[in-house]
């Protein structure tokens, strides 16, 4: 079941720029005012993970992709693209419903996402828990 909300072309363009050209570190997605389309809210090349967290509002839903870089235990760097569905407990029920039922449209458009995270509070998107998920099995 899905909401029928569409995905703006810019979402895919910016995602390709992140994935192929490494032009961004992360992208924040949201819905347009009319609630008909998923749009890019912000792109950033900040290397600070805290900046990324700061762009996830306390009481509003968002989606995000983040080009996550980490060291393997046996040495060597790895990059993984993570997808975050941000739906904080404090958000309004209508927005939660809207974002949860529209996620699939965006998620299907983004090919190459390695890790998916459902975040309802900041502990679930903290660097350590993301690192734990990203490094599992590799």
């Amino acid at each position, binding site marked *: *079941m*899905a*909401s*029928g*909300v*569409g995905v703006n072309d810019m979402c895919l363009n910016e995602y390709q720029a992140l994935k192929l050209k490494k032009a961004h570190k992360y992208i924040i997605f949201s819905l347009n005012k*009319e*609630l*008909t389309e998923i749009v890019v809210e912000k792109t950033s090349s900040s290397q600070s993970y805290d900046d990324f967290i700061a762009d996830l509002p306390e009481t509003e*839903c968002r989606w995000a992709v983040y080009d996550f870089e980490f060291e393997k235990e046996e040495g060597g760097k790895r990059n993984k693209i993570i997808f975050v*569905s941000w*739906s904080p*407990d404090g*958000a309004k*029920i*209508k*927005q*939660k*419903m*809207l*974002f*949860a*039922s529209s*996620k*699939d449209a965006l*998620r299907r458009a983004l090919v190459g996402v390695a890790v998916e995270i*459902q975040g*309802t509070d900041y502990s679930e998107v903290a660097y350590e828990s993301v690192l734990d998920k990203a490094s599992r099995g590799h």
Partner: protein
Amino acid sequence: MVQYGGDEVSALVVDIGSSSLRAGYAGDDTPKSIIPTTYGYHRAEGDEAMDVEGGDATQAPKRVKMYIGQNGPSMWRAGMETANPMVDGLIDDFAAIPPLIEHALVDVMRCTPSEHPILVTEPPWNTPANRERMAEIMFEEFQVPAFYIANTGVLNAFAAGKGTALVIDVGKSMASVTPVVDGFVLRKGLSYSPLPKLVQAHARHILVTPTPMRRGIELLPHQLIANKTPVDLNAPPRFTLREERLAGTTESWRQWAEAREVDEWIQSVAGVLEQGWNDQLAAQRPPKPYEFPTGYNTYFGGERLSVGEQFFYHPQALVASNPNLPKHLPALISDTLRSCDAELRQVLSSNVVVTGGGTLFAGFVDRLSAELTRSFPHAKIHAPGNPIERRYGGWLGGSILASLGTFHQLWISKEEWQEHGKAIVGQRCK
């Protein structure tokens, strides 16, 4: 393509449960019309021999006078029987459904169903035949311009902001555990049982069984009591029965009314210990007073907490003596999780959504949390604090979804129904 513009007229949302039927406008945050699903009826004259059990009643709906809504079953009428079209959370007697929906939409909401698209909810274990029948009723009897049927498991997960979640839904007659993954129910992992009925039976047993401390309690509803005089704590009640009504009181109505008294008692007095059963802890909890319609009043101590225990634990002896005992919640949850792979199990247990009126039972969420974290230390429970959201989560989810302008792509239009027939329901409503 759908002919009408999705946001020109507001859609209606109908959510049918064992205890109540909820209906209202999409976009609202509470249903406008909440009526009991149980209805009263009189058999037509000269039809005394008609068997009203199961499907037989459906053969002659016109010969039966129904009493529906707030003044339906709860008003005493001589010779009135009661019935409920639901069996194990599914619609069993479809003949009663159109009058119930019509009452909610036309009499209570004063709207014209043929002018509004209607979204109906269904439990995760609904059958294809059942949902097709519902589509048929909506298109053929109510002449709706568009229809959609949505799964309550998915609606509740979405309303909690989750595409993937373990939805624990406890209603009036059924308890279910539904794994929802990316907006779809994982059917092989679905578990459910008529557990709430066991809880009710246990509560009833406590009340009617005499103890050394008190007499067996008469579950007389206020409709059968003419007057009563206040009595002291634990004193025998002093009341006068409405003798003239006794002869005209049917067995089915009496059972319905008594079950309501038990429910009232459960809601005001019963509870569950947060950390599992412990005689000492139960004895330490403050006893709660309760007055019955007869005027009899007493305090209930530890026994009131044993009621909730039925949700979570069944003693060996009980299980051995009753092979058909409904599974308790920890068993349902572990059945569900066992059928999912390890990675998914982790995700589901950290995204537990609790919904349904039965979960408002005092202490329920705390106990559930204790049971879950025993096996899954990272378990996280999402339980709306607002009782309306908890009780009507499925309706509310449907209300939001059906109010979206973009949702019009998903509606099944009347034209599509006429062209494709029943097959379209399964294709569109996944």
